[in-house]
Protein backbone atom coordinates (compact mmCIF):
# COMPACT_ATOMS: atom_id res chain seq x y z
CA UNK A 1 0.00 0.00 0.00
CA UNK A 2 1.13 3.54 -0.75
CA UNK A 3 2.68 5.05 2.44
CA UNK A 4 0.51 8.18 2.10
CA UNK A 5 -2.70 6.11 1.94
CA UNK A 6 -1.59 3.90 4.83
CA UNK A 7 -0.79 7.00 6.88
CA UNK A 8 -4.16 8.60 6.16
CA UNK A 9 -6.12 5.45 7.05
CA UNK A 10 -4.23 4.95 10.32
CA UNK A 11 -4.65 8.61 11.27
CA UNK A 12 -8.39 8.54 10.59
CA UNK A 13 -8.79 5.30 12.56
CA UNK A 14 -7.00 6.82 15.55
CA UNK A 15 -9.03 10.02 15.34
CA UNK A 16 -12.33 8.06 15.18
CA UNK A 17 -11.31 5.99 18.19
CA UNK A 18 -10.51 9.15 20.13
CA UNK A 19 -13.72 10.91 19.16
CA UNK A 20 -15.80 7.90 20.17
CA UNK A 21 -14.53 8.16 23.76
CA UNK A 22 -17.68 9.20 25.58
CA UNK A 23 -17.32 7.15 28.77
CA UNK A 24 -16.19 9.31 31.68
CA UNK A 25 -13.51 7.62 33.77
CA UNK A 26 -13.44 9.02 37.31
CA UNK A 27 -10.07 9.62 39.00
CA UNK A 28 -10.58 6.74 41.46
CA UNK A 29 -10.93 4.38 38.45
CA UNK A 30 -7.53 5.37 37.03
CA UNK A 31 -5.24 3.43 39.35
CA UNK A 32 -3.87 1.39 36.43
CA UNK A 33 -2.88 4.56 34.59
CA UNK A 34 -0.43 5.42 37.39
CA UNK A 35 1.43 2.09 37.04
CA UNK A 36 5.11 2.39 36.01
CA UNK A 37 4.38 0.92 32.57
CA UNK A 38 1.64 3.45 31.83
CA UNK A 39 2.99 6.61 33.45
CA UNK A 40 6.17 6.79 31.34
CA UNK A 41 6.07 10.23 29.70
CA UNK A 42 7.99 12.07 32.39
CA UNK A 43 10.46 9.24 33.08
CA UNK A 44 11.31 8.72 29.41
CA UNK A 45 11.40 12.38 28.36
CA UNK A 46 15.18 12.77 28.32
CA UNK A 47 16.03 9.39 26.77
CA UNK A 48 13.31 9.93 24.14
CA UNK A 49 15.05 13.15 23.10
CA UNK A 50 18.23 11.19 22.41
CA UNK A 51 16.40 8.57 20.33
CA UNK A 52 14.69 11.38 18.41
CA UNK A 53 18.09 12.99 17.79
CA UNK A 54 19.48 9.71 16.41
CA UNK A 55 16.46 9.22 14.15
CA UNK A 56 16.63 12.80 12.90
CA UNK A 57 20.30 12.34 12.02
CA UNK A 58 19.79 9.09 10.14
CA UNK A 59 16.28 9.34 8.66
CA UNK A 60 14.95 11.86 6.15
CA UNK A 61 11.93 13.19 8.03
CA UNK A 62 12.63 16.85 8.78
CA UNK A 63 13.43 17.53 12.43
CA UNK A 64 10.94 19.59 14.35
CA UNK A 65 12.35 22.89 15.58
CA UNK A 66 11.97 21.69 19.17
CA UNK A 67 15.33 19.95 18.86
CA UNK A 68 18.63 21.76 18.56
CA UNK A 69 20.31 21.39 15.20
CA UNK A 70 23.77 20.12 14.45
CA UNK A 71 25.46 17.10 15.90
CA UNK A 72 25.55 13.57 14.47
CA UNK A 73 25.98 14.95 10.95
CA UNK A 74 22.52 16.48 11.13
CA UNK A 75 23.44 19.74 9.47
Amino acid sequence: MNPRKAALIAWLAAACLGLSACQHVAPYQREALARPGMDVKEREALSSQFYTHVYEAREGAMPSSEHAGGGCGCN
Partner: protein
Amino acid sequence: MEGRGNYFWERSTRVVVPEAKLKLTSPNGVRLGAGYLVDAITSASIAAAATSDQLKTELRHGVHADVGKELDLGSSELDLTVLGAYSTENDYRSWIYGLRSSLSWGERASKLSLTASRVQDRVLSNADRTFDRPLSGVTVGPSFEQVLAPVLVLTVSYQLGYLQGYLGNPYRRAAFASHAPEREAPPETRLRHEASARLAWYLPGSRTALHLLYSAYADSWNIAAISPELRVYQQIGPDLLLRPRYRLYLQSAASFAPPASGKYPAGYLGPTTNDPKLEALRTHTIGLAIEYRLGVFADTVFDFAKTAWLDVGFDRYLSNSSFGNGIIGTAGAVVPF
Protein backbone atom coordinates in the same frame (compact mmCIF):
# COMPACT_ATOMS: atom_id res chain seq x y z
CA MET B 1 17.29 15.31 39.22
CA GLU B 2 18.24 13.14 36.29
CA GLY B 3 21.60 12.11 34.86
CA ARG B 4 22.03 10.12 31.67
CA GLY B 5 24.72 8.72 29.42
CA ASN B 6 23.75 7.99 25.81
CA TYR B 7 25.78 6.22 23.16
CA PHE B 8 25.35 5.71 19.43
CA TRP B 9 27.75 3.61 17.39
CA GLU B 10 27.80 2.90 13.69
CA ARG B 11 30.42 2.04 11.06
CA SER B 12 31.71 5.61 10.61
CA THR B 13 30.43 7.52 13.64
CA ARG B 14 30.48 7.27 17.44
CA VAL B 15 28.36 9.61 19.55
CA VAL B 16 28.62 9.85 23.34
CA VAL B 17 26.18 12.19 25.09
CA PRO B 18 26.35 12.69 28.86
CA GLU B 19 23.56 14.96 30.10
CA ALA B 20 21.95 16.19 33.29
CA LYS B 21 18.57 17.72 34.05
CA LEU B 22 17.24 19.38 37.17
CA LYS B 23 13.60 20.19 37.92
CA LEU B 24 12.39 22.22 40.87
CA THR B 25 8.86 23.03 41.99
CA SER B 26 8.33 25.98 44.32
CA PRO B 27 5.66 26.01 47.04
CA ASN B 28 3.46 28.29 44.88
CA GLY B 29 3.52 25.75 42.02
CA VAL B 30 6.06 27.39 39.72
CA ARG B 31 8.21 24.78 37.99
CA LEU B 32 11.79 25.47 36.95
CA GLY B 33 13.77 23.13 34.73
CA ALA B 34 17.33 23.30 33.43
CA GLY B 35 19.63 20.91 31.64
CA TYR B 36 23.05 20.57 30.07
CA LEU B 37 24.51 18.08 27.61
CA VAL B 38 27.69 17.43 25.68
CA ASP B 39 27.53 15.70 22.32
CA ALA B 40 30.95 14.14 21.56
CA ILE B 41 30.86 13.03 17.92
CA THR B 42 33.77 11.03 16.57
CA SER B 43 33.68 10.29 12.87
CA ALA B 44 36.08 9.02 10.22
CA SER B 45 37.17 11.53 7.61
CA ILE B 46 39.56 11.08 4.74
CA ALA B 47 42.06 13.89 5.14
CA ALA B 48 43.72 15.38 2.09
CA ALA B 49 46.96 13.60 1.21
CA ALA B 50 46.32 10.92 3.83
CA THR B 51 46.37 7.29 2.90
CA SER B 52 43.91 6.17 5.53
CA ASP B 53 40.87 7.44 7.43
CA GLN B 54 41.52 9.75 10.36
CA LEU B 55 39.28 10.01 13.39
CA LYS B 56 37.97 13.47 14.19
CA THR B 57 36.05 14.39 17.34
CA GLU B 58 33.72 17.38 17.60
CA LEU B 59 31.93 18.61 20.70
CA ARG B 60 28.48 20.14 20.85
CA HIS B 61 27.37 21.82 24.06
CA GLY B 62 23.68 22.33 24.73
CA VAL B 63 21.77 24.06 27.54
CA HIS B 64 18.05 24.38 28.01
CA ALA B 65 15.71 25.91 30.57
CA ASP B 66 11.99 26.15 31.10
CA VAL B 67 9.57 27.83 33.50
CA GLY B 68 5.99 26.71 33.95
CA LYS B 69 2.96 26.88 36.17
CA GLU B 70 -0.45 25.26 36.32
CA LEU B 71 -3.42 27.57 36.85
CA ASP B 72 -6.61 26.27 38.43
CA LEU B 73 -9.62 27.49 36.43
CA GLY B 74 -12.27 25.77 38.53
CA SER B 75 -13.52 22.89 36.41
CA SER B 76 -10.35 22.82 34.31
CA GLU B 77 -6.61 23.37 34.62
CA LEU B 78 -4.41 25.46 32.35
CA ASP B 79 -0.69 24.69 32.25
CA LEU B 80 1.73 27.15 30.64
CA THR B 81 5.47 26.64 30.05
CA VAL B 82 7.99 28.84 28.29
CA LEU B 83 11.23 27.23 27.17
CA GLY B 84 14.53 28.10 25.61
CA ALA B 85 17.57 26.14 24.42
CA TYR B 86 20.98 26.99 23.01
CA SER B 87 23.34 24.62 21.28
CA THR B 88 26.82 25.37 19.99
CA GLU B 89 29.60 23.56 18.19
CA ASN B 90 32.46 24.94 16.15
CA ASP B 91 30.45 24.92 12.93
CA TYR B 92 26.86 25.26 14.11
CA ARG B 93 24.84 27.48 16.50
CA SER B 94 21.21 27.00 17.38
CA TRP B 95 18.70 29.01 19.41
CA ILE B 96 15.26 27.61 20.19
CA TYR B 97 12.48 29.22 22.16
CA GLY B 98 8.84 28.34 22.51
CA LEU B 99 5.66 27.95 24.49
CA ARG B 100 3.83 24.84 25.64
CA SER B 101 0.28 25.07 26.88
CA SER B 102 -2.30 22.50 27.88
CA LEU B 103 -5.89 22.64 29.08
CA SER B 104 -7.24 19.70 31.10
CA TRP B 105 -10.87 19.10 31.97
CA GLY B 106 -13.20 16.32 33.09
CA GLU B 107 -11.10 15.73 36.21
CA ARG B 108 -8.06 15.52 33.89
CA ALA B 109 -9.59 12.80 31.72
CA SER B 110 -9.14 15.04 28.66
CA LYS B 111 -6.20 17.25 27.79
CA LEU B 112 -5.73 19.54 24.81
CA SER B 113 -2.19 20.83 24.27
CA LEU B 114 -0.67 23.35 21.93
CA THR B 115 3.05 23.77 21.36
CA ALA B 116 4.78 26.47 19.35
CA SER B 117 8.51 26.96 18.94
CA ARG B 118 10.95 28.91 16.83
CA VAL B 119 14.49 28.00 15.86
CA GLN B 120 17.25 30.32 14.66
CA ASP B 121 20.45 28.61 13.52
CA ARG B 122 23.75 29.56 11.90
CA VAL B 123 25.38 26.99 9.66
CA LEU B 124 29.17 27.36 9.34
CA SER B 125 31.95 25.34 7.72
CA ASN B 126 35.41 24.61 9.07
CA ALA B 127 36.54 23.87 5.52
CA ASP B 128 35.40 27.25 4.19
CA ARG B 129 35.57 30.13 6.68
CA THR B 130 33.52 32.34 4.34
CA PHE B 131 30.53 29.99 4.59
CA ASP B 132 28.02 31.40 7.08
CA ARG B 133 24.34 30.82 6.34
CA PRO B 134 21.21 31.30 8.47
CA LEU B 135 18.50 28.73 9.04
CA SER B 136 15.25 29.57 10.78
CA GLY B 137 11.93 27.89 11.29
CA VAL B 138 8.75 27.48 13.29
CA THR B 139 6.85 24.45 14.55
CA VAL B 140 3.27 24.48 15.84
CA GLY B 141 1.19 21.54 16.87
CA PRO B 142 -1.96 20.61 18.77
CA SER B 143 -2.24 17.36 20.70
CA PHE B 144 -5.23 15.71 22.36
CA GLU B 145 -5.06 13.11 25.13
CA GLN B 146 -8.14 11.21 26.28
CA VAL B 147 -8.62 8.58 28.98
CA LEU B 148 -10.86 6.13 27.09
CA ALA B 149 -11.27 3.54 29.83
CA PRO B 150 -9.73 2.76 33.23
CA VAL B 151 -6.91 0.94 31.39
CA LEU B 152 -6.77 2.79 28.06
CA VAL B 153 -5.35 6.20 27.05
CA LEU B 154 -5.18 7.60 23.53
CA THR B 155 -3.07 10.56 22.41
CA VAL B 156 -3.33 12.04 18.91
CA SER B 157 -1.06 14.84 17.70
CA TYR B 158 -0.38 16.91 14.64
CA GLN B 159 2.65 19.05 13.96
CA LEU B 160 3.28 21.60 11.22
CA GLY B 161 6.84 22.76 10.64
CA TYR B 162 8.51 25.21 8.30
CA LEU B 163 12.21 25.81 7.79
CA GLN B 164 13.93 28.42 5.66
CA GLY B 165 17.62 28.88 4.94
CA TYR B 166 20.52 26.56 4.17
CA LEU B 167 19.10 23.06 4.69
CA GLY B 168 22.07 21.04 3.52
CA ASN B 169 25.44 20.07 4.93
CA PRO B 170 28.27 22.35 3.76
CA TYR B 171 30.71 19.41 3.80
CA ARG B 172 28.67 17.19 1.48
CA ARG B 173 29.34 17.34 -2.27
CA ALA B 174 26.80 16.42 -4.91
CA ALA B 175 28.25 14.43 -7.84
CA PHE B 176 27.68 15.35 -11.49
CA ALA B 177 28.25 13.35 -14.67
CA SER B 178 29.56 16.39 -16.52
CA HIS B 179 31.79 18.15 -14.00
CA ALA B 180 33.47 18.06 -10.60
CA PRO B 181 31.38 17.66 -7.41
CA GLU B 182 29.86 20.81 -5.91
CA ARG B 183 28.59 21.67 -2.45
CA GLU B 184 25.08 20.21 -2.16
CA ALA B 185 22.28 22.75 -2.57
CA PRO B 186 18.86 21.45 -1.51
CA PRO B 187 15.77 23.70 -1.69
CA GLU B 188 15.91 26.65 0.74
CA THR B 189 12.47 26.02 2.23
CA ARG B 190 10.80 22.93 3.66
CA LEU B 191 7.27 22.45 4.95
CA ARG B 192 6.46 19.38 7.01
CA HIS B 193 3.29 17.72 8.32
CA GLU B 194 3.41 14.99 10.92
CA ALA B 195 0.49 13.19 12.51
CA SER B 196 1.06 10.74 15.33
CA ALA B 197 -0.94 8.65 17.73
CA ARG B 198 -0.17 6.67 20.86
CA LEU B 199 -2.48 4.09 22.43
CA ALA B 200 -1.49 2.86 25.90
CA TRP B 201 -3.33 -0.19 27.24
CA TYR B 202 -2.80 -1.78 30.66
CA LEU B 203 -3.46 -5.49 31.28
CA PRO B 204 -3.92 -5.79 35.08
CA GLY B 205 -3.78 -9.61 35.18
CA SER B 206 -0.20 -9.77 33.91
CA ARG B 207 0.83 -6.21 34.93
CA THR B 208 1.71 -5.53 31.32
CA ALA B 209 1.35 -2.20 29.51
CA LEU B 210 1.21 -2.17 25.72
CA HIS B 211 2.03 1.07 23.89
CA LEU B 212 1.25 1.25 20.20
CA LEU B 213 2.72 4.30 18.49
CA TYR B 214 2.15 5.39 14.93
CA SER B 215 3.51 8.35 13.04
CA ALA B 216 2.86 9.53 9.49
CA TYR B 217 4.95 12.22 7.84
CA ALA B 218 4.92 14.16 4.56
CA ASP B 219 6.87 17.20 3.43
CA SER B 220 7.34 19.58 0.51
CA TRP B 221 10.45 17.68 -0.64
CA ASN B 222 8.10 14.83 -1.50
CA ILE B 223 9.34 12.64 1.34
CA ALA B 224 6.58 10.54 2.88
CA ALA B 225 7.23 8.28 5.85
CA ILE B 226 5.36 6.03 8.24
CA SER B 227 6.61 4.69 11.53
CA PRO B 228 4.69 2.11 13.61
CA GLU B 229 6.16 1.07 16.95
CA LEU B 230 5.24 -1.36 19.71
CA ARG B 231 6.55 -1.07 23.26
CA VAL B 232 5.76 -3.60 25.96
CA TYR B 233 6.30 -2.63 29.60
CA GLN B 234 6.34 -5.72 31.78
CA GLN B 235 6.43 -5.22 35.54
CA ILE B 236 8.22 -7.97 37.47
CA GLY B 237 7.87 -7.70 41.22
CA PRO B 238 7.37 -4.29 42.82
CA ASP B 239 10.48 -2.59 41.41
CA LEU B 240 11.58 -4.14 38.11
CA LEU B 241 10.30 -3.13 34.69
CA LEU B 242 11.34 -4.67 31.35
CA ARG B 243 10.62 -2.80 28.13
CA PRO B 244 11.17 -4.60 24.82
CA ARG B 245 10.34 -2.54 21.73
CA TYR B 246 10.20 -2.71 17.96
CA ARG B 247 10.01 0.27 15.58
CA LEU B 248 9.74 0.22 11.79
CA TYR B 249 10.44 3.30 9.65
CA LEU B 250 9.67 3.44 5.92
CA GLN B 251 10.48 6.45 3.80
CA SER B 252 10.23 7.51 0.15
CA ALA B 253 13.00 9.49 -1.59
CA ALA B 254 13.17 13.27 -1.88
CA SER B 255 12.12 14.54 -5.30
CA PHE B 256 15.64 15.80 -6.01
CA ALA B 257 17.58 12.76 -4.73
CA PRO B 258 20.31 11.79 -7.19
CA PRO B 259 19.59 9.05 -9.75
CA ALA B 260 20.72 5.45 -9.18
CA SER B 261 24.13 6.25 -10.71
CA GLY B 262 24.70 8.73 -7.86
CA LYS B 263 25.46 11.52 -10.35
CA TYR B 264 23.21 14.27 -11.64
CA PRO B 265 23.05 14.29 -15.46
CA ALA B 266 24.73 16.91 -17.63
CA GLY B 267 22.71 20.11 -17.79
CA TYR B 268 20.87 19.46 -14.48
CA LEU B 269 20.14 22.78 -12.75
CA GLY B 270 17.75 21.78 -9.95
CA PRO B 271 18.39 21.31 -6.22
CA THR B 272 21.04 18.76 -5.29
CA THR B 273 22.01 16.56 -2.39
CA ASN B 274 24.42 13.83 -1.43
CA ASP B 275 22.60 13.00 1.80
CA PRO B 276 21.99 9.25 2.17
CA LYS B 277 18.97 9.90 4.38
CA LEU B 278 17.10 11.64 1.56
CA GLU B 279 16.93 8.40 -0.45
CA ALA B 280 14.19 5.79 -0.07
CA LEU B 281 15.07 3.81 3.03
CA ARG B 282 13.84 1.41 5.67
CA THR B 283 15.03 1.10 9.26
CA HIS B 284 14.24 -1.25 12.14
CA THR B 285 14.90 -0.57 15.82
CA ILE B 286 14.82 -3.57 18.13
CA GLY B 287 15.64 -2.98 21.75
CA LEU B 288 15.31 -3.83 25.39
CA ALA B 289 15.39 -1.51 28.39
CA ILE B 290 15.46 -2.46 32.05
CA GLU B 291 14.27 -0.07 34.76
CA TYR B 292 14.77 -0.66 38.45
CA ARG B 293 13.25 1.37 41.25
CA LEU B 294 15.27 1.50 44.46
CA GLY B 295 12.37 0.36 46.63
CA VAL B 296 14.79 -1.74 48.69
CA PHE B 297 15.97 1.48 50.35
CA ALA B 298 12.58 2.16 51.95
CA ASP B 299 12.82 2.62 55.73
CA THR B 300 16.63 2.70 55.64
CA VAL B 301 19.06 5.59 55.94
CA PHE B 302 18.68 5.93 52.15
CA ASP B 303 14.89 6.21 52.35
CA PHE B 304 15.03 9.41 50.24
CA ALA B 305 16.11 7.24 47.27
CA LYS B 306 13.27 4.73 47.46
CA THR B 307 11.46 6.33 44.51
CA ALA B 308 14.62 6.75 42.40
CA TRP B 309 14.81 4.89 39.10
CA LEU B 310 17.85 3.41 37.38
CA ASP B 311 17.59 2.35 33.77
CA VAL B 312 19.72 0.84 31.05
CA GLY B 313 18.73 0.28 27.44
CA PHE B 314 20.23 -1.34 24.38
CA ASP B 315 18.85 -1.07 20.84
CA ARG B 316 20.00 -2.54 17.53
CA TYR B 317 19.37 -0.07 14.72
CA LEU B 318 19.18 -1.68 11.28
CA SER B 319 19.16 0.55 8.19
CA ASN B 320 19.43 -0.14 4.47
CA SER B 321 20.90 3.33 3.86
CA SER B 322 24.63 3.78 3.27
CA PHE B 323 24.99 4.88 6.92
CA GLY B 324 24.57 1.20 7.75
CA ASN B 325 23.51 -0.43 10.99
CA GLY B 326 24.08 0.98 14.46
CA ILE B 327 23.81 0.39 18.17
CA ILE B 328 22.04 2.73 20.60
CA GLY B 329 22.82 2.50 24.29
CA THR B 330 21.42 4.53 27.18
CA ALA B 331 21.84 4.47 30.93
CA GLY B 332 20.37 6.85 33.45
CA ALA B 333 19.18 7.62 36.94
CA VAL B 334 16.21 9.70 38.07
CA VAL B 335 16.39 10.75 41.72
CA PRO B 336 13.46 12.71 43.22
CA PHE B 337 14.09 14.71 46.40
